[in-house]
Each structure stands twice: as C-alpha cells, then as structure tokens.
C-alpha cells in the first residue's frame, strides 16, 4: 500500500486517540476574581497531570450574575460544577438542577466537616454539595480613626457602638461613623441579621419569620437612630454587581469608621489600602440591650454538580471535587481548595483545613473572625430564602433613606416574610 493511502486512517486513529485522551470535559463556574481563578486553574492542571482523560475549564461571572447564569444555562450547556451560596440550594434541588453526591463523597463530607456546615449542603437528608468556604460577620474598624476620636477599645455593646459612631462622624470631612451597605441583598441583610442575633433575636425560627419580635424592633430602631443622627450616610454605602463600589471605597479611604462585613473581603481591603491595612481591626458584633452574648451570622459556599451532566461527566466532576477538597492536596496537610480560599482571607470549612491553617488563621484580621465563629448562627436556609432576603433588603433600604419609620419597616418586613415563605411552600 502506498504510504499516502494510509494517511486518512492514520489521521482518524490520531483523532480517536486525542478524543479518548480528553474524553471527559468538566466546566467549573465560579464568581471568583481573575487572580483566584488562576489559582483554581493551577489546581485543575495539577489534577489533570494524574487524570489526563479529564479536561477542566474554569469560567467566572460577577457574583450578581452567578445565580442567573446557573439557572439560565440549565440543560446541556450547564456548567458541570458550580460554586453556590448555600441559600440557593433548596430551590436548585426542588428544580432538579443539582445531582446528589455519591455515597463515598457524602460520607466523607459528613465525617470531615463540622455538622452544622455539612447540614447546609443537605436537603431532606441527602447531600448535594461539598462545602468549601465559611464566612462570618464581624465588626471591622479603623484603628487610626478610633485613636483620632479618642476611643480606646472596640465597642462591646450597642450603647458603646452608637457612642463610637457619633464620635467618629465628621460630616464636614465627609466621614461617617458606621457604614451601611445598599444595592446588594446579602450586604444589606447580613449585617442587620448579625446585629439582630447579637440582640438575642432571629430572622426565622422553626421555619416561621420572627421579625415581629421586640429584639427585631430594637434592631430596626438602631438603624433609624444611626441614619437620623447622621452617623451612617446611606449614600456612601452603594455596592455594584461585583460587590465592590463606594461602600468599599469609603472604608478603604478612611471615610467610614466602622462597618460590619464578612472575612472574605480581606483581599479587597489589602488591595485598596496597601500599608494602611494594618489600621483595620476586627471585633465581635456589639451586644444589643436584649442580647446576652456577642453573636453573628455565618453562611457557607459549596460546589455542586449539574444534574443534567452525563453520568461520566458527573463522576469526573465529583472525583475532581473530592481531590480538590481532599486532605493533603495543598500545602502540608491542607487541601488545594483551602490554599485557594486562604489566598482571599476566606476561612476554610473542612476540620483538617482549619487545623492545617492554624498559624494563618491566627493573624490579626482573621483571628477576630475565627473568635466569633463559635457563637455564629447559620443564615436560615429555606425555600424562598433569596426572595425573603431581597424583600428585607428593600425594607431596610427604605428605612435607611427615610421613606418609612422603624415601626413601619418592622411591620412590612414581617408581612413580606410571611407571604414569601407561604408562597414558596405552595
């Protein structure tokens, strides 16, 4: 046979080999920044060195578009793996968009993660995701501004908190004592919920909204007091789709004395403040008049696998996730995922990752968050949770901008929550 006659067969053979070598394609959707995506891609490359039959691609969208992207690309074009906020899980499960974890993965998660965190990845006793990051809210304050205002220590009670906000406020210099956030549902609701639980209250108890409690009433009144006295200026708290914007700029530039935020924004503060980041300190949420102990709100993120992916893709995705979150795949005994999270100042949730990162978690900024984690309550994960959060956001923003009173805000928030949870249960 002439050599050229064998060429098509040779090409077909090469193509077939190439296809089988890259036979499973796994896509990973996240909202992380380009720097963090690069770390995830590096981890994926490391995994592919030992798994040449799997090809992993990473795609990032802004946080504000993440849920829409997951929902709108459901079907054949859905990302195989998605990083999700735990509040979204019940509805994704209801709509059959996410696949249950295989038994091996499920038992590993239940054994290697704290119970509360593993519970956030389950619906009806079935585990759907591998938790990775845990975020908790605490009070961040600018030590230099505190010293300038003659304040010696972080406020421990609401009384001290409002006194500090008043002392820090300098309207002439465009400085507010305490920064509220708006135009971003979690940024609005989580700080409110943190103050509420630190006042002994709760958003939802046993599936029923409890925003009509006296503790909630005091929290709404605190917001009104902060704004009406000019200690908080709502116009300085706008956030954009990337969860950055003026609220961050104002804290970074020393125009906000205190703010309640989650640990994940450490990297944004470092990038914006440079050496001045040393001025940022972390303290527990001040205790309200009806509260007994400093408390806070926590929430987790997890990775889920698309139910519409093929069985082969699902198997490859779970295997990659098990490796990514597995003990010893990163530095020392830590997982590769924990290395990525720690680069952003995010607390890992796997027990062995917490142990492996004790030194790093002990640094000033993060230690303040780790200390409040013990008394933190998980943000309620219920059907309709996202709509509930957005409705409460609207009410709080209306209160902040003086469109309604604290009493009206409380009444509207409870009525909205009741109707939303009732509709979601239909």
């Amino acid at each position: 046979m002439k050599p050229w006659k064998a060429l098509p067969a040779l090409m077909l053979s090469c193509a077939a080999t190439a296809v089988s070598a890259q036979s499973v394609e796994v896509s990973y959707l996240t909202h992380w920044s380009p720097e963090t995506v690069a770390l995830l891609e590096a981890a994926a490359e490391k995994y592919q060195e030992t798994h040449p039959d799997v090809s992993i691609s990473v795609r990032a969208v802004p946080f504000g578009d993440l849920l829409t992207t997951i929902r709108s690309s459901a079907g054949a074009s859905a990302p195989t793996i998605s990083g999700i906020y735990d509040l979204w899980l019940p509805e994704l499960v209801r709509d059959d968009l996410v696949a249950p974890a295989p038994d091996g993965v499920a038992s590993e998660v239940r054994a290697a993660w704290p119970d509360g965190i593993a519970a956030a990845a389950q619906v009806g006793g079935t585990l759907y995701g591998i938790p990775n990051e845990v975020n908790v809210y605490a009070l961040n304050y600018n030590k230099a501004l505190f010293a300038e205002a003659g304040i010696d220590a972080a406020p421990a009670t609401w009384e001290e908190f409002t006194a500090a906000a008043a002392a820090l406020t300098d309207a002439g210099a465009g400085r507010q004592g305490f920064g509220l956030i708006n135009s971003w549902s979690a940024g609005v609701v989580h700080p409110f919920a943190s103050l509420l639980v630190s006042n002994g209250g709760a958003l939802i108890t046993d599936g029923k909204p409890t925003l009509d409690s006296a503790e909630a009433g005091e929290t709404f009144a605190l917001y009104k007091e902060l704004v009406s006295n000019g200690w908080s200026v709502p116009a300085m708290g706008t956030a954009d789709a990337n969860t950055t914007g003026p609220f961050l700029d104002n804290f970074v530039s020393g125009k906000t004395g205190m703010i309640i935020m989650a640990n994940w924004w450490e990297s944004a503060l470092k990038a914006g403040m440079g050496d001045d980041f040393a001025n940022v300190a972390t303290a527990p949420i001040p205790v309200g008049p009806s509260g007994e102990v400093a408390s806070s709100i926590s929430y987790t993120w997890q990775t889920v696998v698309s139910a519409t992916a093929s069985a082969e893709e699902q198997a490859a995705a779970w295997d990659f996730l098990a490796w990514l979150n597995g003990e010893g795949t990163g530095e020392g005994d830590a997982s590769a995922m924990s290395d990525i999270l720690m680069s952003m100042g995010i607390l890992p949730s796997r027990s062995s990752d917490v142990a492996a990162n004790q030194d790093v978690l002990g640094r000033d900024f993060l230690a303040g968050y780790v200390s409040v984690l013990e008394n933190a309550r998980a943000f309620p994960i219920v059907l309709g949770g996202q709509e509930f959060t957005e409705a409460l956001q609207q009410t709080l923003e209306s209160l902040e901008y003086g469109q309604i009173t604290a009493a009206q805000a409380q009444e509207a928030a409870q009525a909205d929550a009741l109707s939303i949870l009732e509709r979601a249960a239909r």
Partner: protein
Amino acid sequence: MPRARLSPILMIGPAAGFIGVFILVPMVLTIWLSFHQWSTQTPFSTAEWVGLRNYEDIFSALSVGRDFKTALRNTAIYTALSVAILLPLSVLLGLLVYQRAVAGGQFLRTVLFASYMVPMIAVALVWSKLYAPTEGPLNQILGWVGIGPQTWLAAPDTALYSLVLLNVWQQIGYFTVLAVAGLTQIPNTLYEAARIDGAGPVQSFFGVTLPLMRRTLLFSAVIAIINAVQVFEPVALITQGGPAGSTNVLTFHIRRVGIERSQGGLGSAMAVTLMLALIVTVFAIFAANRRGGRE
C-alpha cells in the same frame, strides 16, 4: 390550486412561518404560562393552572406586587423622561449639524454618533465612576462652580434620573442622525417660499420644519419608547435595581423573578403586562399622530 394563487402563498410562507415560530409562538406561550405556576427550570408539563392568581399577586399589596408596581412606575418615568429629552434635543442638535455650510458639521455628526457605538459595558464602567458620590469627576466639576456634591446613583431621589441622563448621552447621536435624515427630506423651496412670505427662522421652524418632520419624529418616538422600556444593562451593571428599588425597572425585575427566583408564571404575567402597556402606548401615539395629521 391555480398557479396565480399558489405563488403569493409560496412567497409569503417562509417569512410568515419564521414570524410564527420565533415571535407568535413565544408570545402565546408567555401568555399561557402567565396563568400557571411554573418553575422556569422544569418542563412545561409541570406547569399548574392557577387562573388569574399571578395577576392578582403582581397587583397586590404584598412584596411581590409592591416591587412590580415600583418597577412599572420606574419604567414609565424612565421612558417618559428619556423620550421627552431625546426628541427635542435630537431636533435641536440635528438643526445644528445639518448646516452644510458650516465647517466641521460632518465631524460633529460623527462625534455625536460615536456615543451610540460604545459598548454598554464600557459606558456603565465609565459612568459609574463619573457618578461616584465622594470622588467622582462630576461632583468635583460641580464643586469648582460652587455647587455641592450630588448623590447621583447613591440615593433613591436621584438614581433613576441619573440613569436617564446616561441613556440620553448614549442615544442622542442615533436620534440626531434620524433628525438629520428627516431634515434632508424637506425641500429648500419651502423655506424660500416661507422667506418670501416674510417668515423668520422661528416661524419657518414651526411652520415648515416641524410639520414636515412629523413622520420622522413619530418613528423616533416609537423607537425611543421601545429602547427605553427595554433598558436593562445599566441597571444590571451599575445599580442592581437599587438603592431602595429606585432603579428597579421591569426588564431587570422580570429577569430577577423569572430566572433568578425561577418563578416563571409570575415573570410571564409581568412580561404580558409590560407587553400590553407597550402596545397601548404605541397605539395611542399613532392615534394621536393621525388625529394631528387630520387637523
């Protein structure tokens, strides 16, 4: 069938089929879904008939109704203001750049149209920085002339109007080109006749230019309304509907309800209401135009 009758059917058939599949079917489906409770990510077979409940909900006093009515009102204000500013301004700028004898007219037209060609993502990024309340250039410029800082996108009282301003900046070039196209259709002889009859520039404008631009302005108004009602990108990219829902417009809200929350029935009811409002508005404009033409 006679060949003479078959021919038009063959000619019209492909286009009619295309319109039917890609326009009529989705419209009918949306109307049908608006009477159902349906999660967007589940098959149509899971849709459950709920009659008019979705319509009752979106006009109720509950949060779902309150948010929808706010979005409807915001969209109406945004649209009305955009059209009210764009049309007169485009005619004014059209008259300026239409002067063929003036050097640089072509250049000015190009500059005006350039804003329309800039991608919205770039416009959103730039304008969000321009509007920054504490360190934004707009407030700095106002400070030079003794005007205090404005809240722009950061307060409910000003956020929607700031988006209207952004929209006018981006669209004005397009509507100016339309106005220039309308001006070129007016014969010079009419202006000469008006001048001989003793008409000044103002009388010529109201007696000749404006009446003869009626068709152009009608077209511009309809396009401006449709564009404004469909506003989405600046809201999604800059304000996310806030603060306090002040920039939550219908397209953004329908996306949030129908896709993010997966409430397909409610989202469809909102979309149908928006479609009806748009149809009524456009018909009213055509009716007003016809009545004006007869008078």
